[in-house]
């Protein structure tokens, strides 16, 4: 029995680690040693607590005091004031705009609308301790299923819960399980898809890092239900911490007899292995992922045959996302009806989202399905930073689409989002303010998809490249009439004809931005103007002669010496030579340099003259 009186939980998710949480942990160990308190205070590394924006974060129990943005210099103060004298350090607590202080984790508004199912233990237990997972009810679901339920009952329970795939498609989990269960093959496999690749998404990583045993337990329940006794976790090599922790969890489970032969004294045997992916986005597609595990090139193959009939090494296989498995143990512990009571008619339970972009509380959140985008962005996410206006939200990464302010009251569920041209995706949510150019955003995602296309089928390999070329043309001021229609035509063709999900969904960001921000595309093409001043060719810098004090700083800092003038006549930018580096704006002491939307007349005239010249040669 220990003398511990304080549990200090330090968030060691990847976000907080990069903000320095490991150094802080070391410092705590040092200070506690010095002050002879090491046997009274438990220091626990946890997985992601969620509010990554405020990292490194920590929670001190029993009170549940929440500290944000802690630095190694603050450690001594926390120990002296809080741990010794019992006076929590107010200046490290979260404060809102109205100067209210939130002392405990429960009070922090970020957590209030969240319902944690898959993330229940993330940030609460030490992911490297199996005992802590067991303390929260871990492996009880597995034991109960193995000893009291048959395979069909196990599948029926998932069916009643209404669980659907969390990786993006939203395919009902029980159908996959049933199909593999019904297959008479004597060899079957379970695969956990941890190949999370969307820009700005980190749900799977955080789950694997924060609660690895939960994923293993979910996999084992699935394996029992379908009659498999081997499983693979496919995790990308960019997630070293997730790989380390899941491997450790497998070792611990094997040592404890929770994995291996005759688990819980039943006939069920199971073994899991980790396979690392090299980070190709296409390997998140199930057939490509299976080929990658088999040791072949990660290319998709046409479906059917579906993995449920011919999967890994030609055997029936289920491929489920990390988060899907993360929900499974809790469904068995708390019951299908409990799970189905959350969410909407067709989308049950909760969903984990990675909130990023121009909002205050970026981080990892879990909310009930059916919550509105407004609640997700403004209540949980804390609203926009810097007083800017909300412009759009991108859901579902490179496969998803953008929604606008008029969609803020749309409930977040599979069907509602799809209807409006976005998708649930794996859960990446990128919130954008009015300083973002939507054409540029579409170009960014298209560029990503062109890079990640495996090249096997021509619609995706060639079609996406054509779309990117058109987008580049538009953003560089060479757009012409009919470009929008051409993008739409290409997009629809690529969606219909591509072999796998990557190509089928890659045009979504472009098509959805055209649908909701067509006037921006038109302004880029017709007026050669980017209202947000993001596309460099469609904006210019100008010096306001009224304000210019003639200090010559801009002229001296200009890398191409295109600014001339003197104290009396003030300074002028020669637009034809300007490379739009923005140095002049940065150095101007009186803010006389500003960005102006639209191509400068001189540049436009020169381009026209150049065009005539080339056309002349063409004739």
């Amino acid at each position, binding site marked *: 029995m220990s*003398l511990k*009186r304080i549990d200090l939980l330090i968030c060691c998710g990847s976000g907080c680690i990069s903000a320095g949480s490991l150094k802080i942990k070391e410092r705590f160990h040092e200070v506690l040693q010095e002050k002879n308190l090491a046997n009274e205070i438990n220091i626990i590394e946890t997985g992601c607590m969620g509010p990554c924006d405020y990292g490194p974060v920590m929670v001190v*129990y029993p009170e549940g005091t929440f500290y944000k943005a802690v630095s190694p210099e603050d450690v001594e103060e926390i120990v002296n004031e809080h741990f010794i*004298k019992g006076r929590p350090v107010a200046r490290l607590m979260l404060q809102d705009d109205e100067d209210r202080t939130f002392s405990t984790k429960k009070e922090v508004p970020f957590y209030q609308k969240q319902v944690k199912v898959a993330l229940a233990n993330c940030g609460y*237990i030490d992911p490297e301790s199996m005992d802590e997972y067991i303390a929260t009810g871990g*492996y009880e679901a597995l*034991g*109960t299923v193995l000893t009291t339920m048959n395979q069909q009952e196990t599948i029926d329970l998932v069916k009643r819960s209404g669980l659907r795939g969390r990786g993006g498609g939203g395919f009902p989990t029980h159908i996959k399980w049933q199909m593999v269960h019904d297959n008479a093959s004597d060899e079957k496999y379970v695969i956990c898809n941890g190949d999370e690749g969307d820009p700005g998404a980190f749900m799977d990583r955080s789950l694997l890092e924060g609660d690895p045993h939960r994923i293993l337990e979910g996999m084992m329940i699935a394996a029992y239900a379908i009659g498999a006794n081997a499983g693979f976790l496919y995790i990308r090599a960019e997630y070293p911490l997730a790989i380390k922790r899941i491997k450790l969890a497998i070792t611990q489970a094997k040592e*404890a007899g929770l994995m291996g032969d005759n688990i819980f*004294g039943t006939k069920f045997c199971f073994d899991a292995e980790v396979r690392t992916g090299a980070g190709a986005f296409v390997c998140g597609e199930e057939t490509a992922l299976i080929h990658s595990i088999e040791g072949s090139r990660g290319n998709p193959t046409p479906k059917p045959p579906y993995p449920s009939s011919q999967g890994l090494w030609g055997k029936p296989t289920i491929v489920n996302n990390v988060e899907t498995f993360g929900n499974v143990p809790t469904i068995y512990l708390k019951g299908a009806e409990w799970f189905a009571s959350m969410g909407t008619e067709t989308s049950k339970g909760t969903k984990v989202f990675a909130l990023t972009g121009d909002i205050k509380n970026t981080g990892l959140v879990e909310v009930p399905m059916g919550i509105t985008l407004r609640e997700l962005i403004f209540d949980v996410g804390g609203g926009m930073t810097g007083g800017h206006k909300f412009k759009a939200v991108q859901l579902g990464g490179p496969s998803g689409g953008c929604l606008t302010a008029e969609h803020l009251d749309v409930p977040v569920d599979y069907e509602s989002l799809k209807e409006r041209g976005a998708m649930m995706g794996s859960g990446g949510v990128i919130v954008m303010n009015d300083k973002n150019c939507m054409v540029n955003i579409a170009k960014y995602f298209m560029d990503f998809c062109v890079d990640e296309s495996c090249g096997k089928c021509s619609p995706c390999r060639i079609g996406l490249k054509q779309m990117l070329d058109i987008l580049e043309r538009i953003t560089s001021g060479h757009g012409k009439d009919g470009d929008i229609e051409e993008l739409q035509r290409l997009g629809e063709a690529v969606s219909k004809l591509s072999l796998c999900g990557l190509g089928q969904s890659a045009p979504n960001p472009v098509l959805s931005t055209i649908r909701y921000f067509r006037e921006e595309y038109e302004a880029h093409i017709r007026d050669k103007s980017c209202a947000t001043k993001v596309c460099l060719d469609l904006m210019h810098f100008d010096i306001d002669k009224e304000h210019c004090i003639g200090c010559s700083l801009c002229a001296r800092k200009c890398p191409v010496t295109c600014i001339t003038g003197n104290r009396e006549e003030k300074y002028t930018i020669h637009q034809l030579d300007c490379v739009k580096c923005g140095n002049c704006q940065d150095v101007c002491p009186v803010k006389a340099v500003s960005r102006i939307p639209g191509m400068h007349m001189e540049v436009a005239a020169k381009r026209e003259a150049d065009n005539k010249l080339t056309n002349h040669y063409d004739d």
Partner: protein
Amino acid sequence: MKTLADLKKIREKAQEEMKLRGGNTRIKIVVGMGTSGIAMGAREVMKTFLEEIANRNLTDVLVTQTGEKGLSSMEPVVDVIEEGKPKVTYGNMTPDKVKKVVVEHVVNGRTVSDYVVATGN
């Protein structure tokens, strides 16, 4: 591990280790650790509480600390807070008195009236 009962054993032991994080506490002991409290030996008092509770394997008792309580002349001051009962404040605590409070109040539920300096909030 072969049965659910084995799992339960591990769970109970692990829950015990994690009790600071859970809400499963019957009695909370709050030691006043302001400057004057520490000067009068509040750290020793708290340590004794921790040891006594550990020795007796009391799983539902929480020891925590607070700042100056204002009763400087009676330091070290300790509050014993029980769910649904008025708060009891003990003053002039020493490690020996702590032992008695643990036996009488925490275990047997009888207030040690000799050491009480205040009750209620």
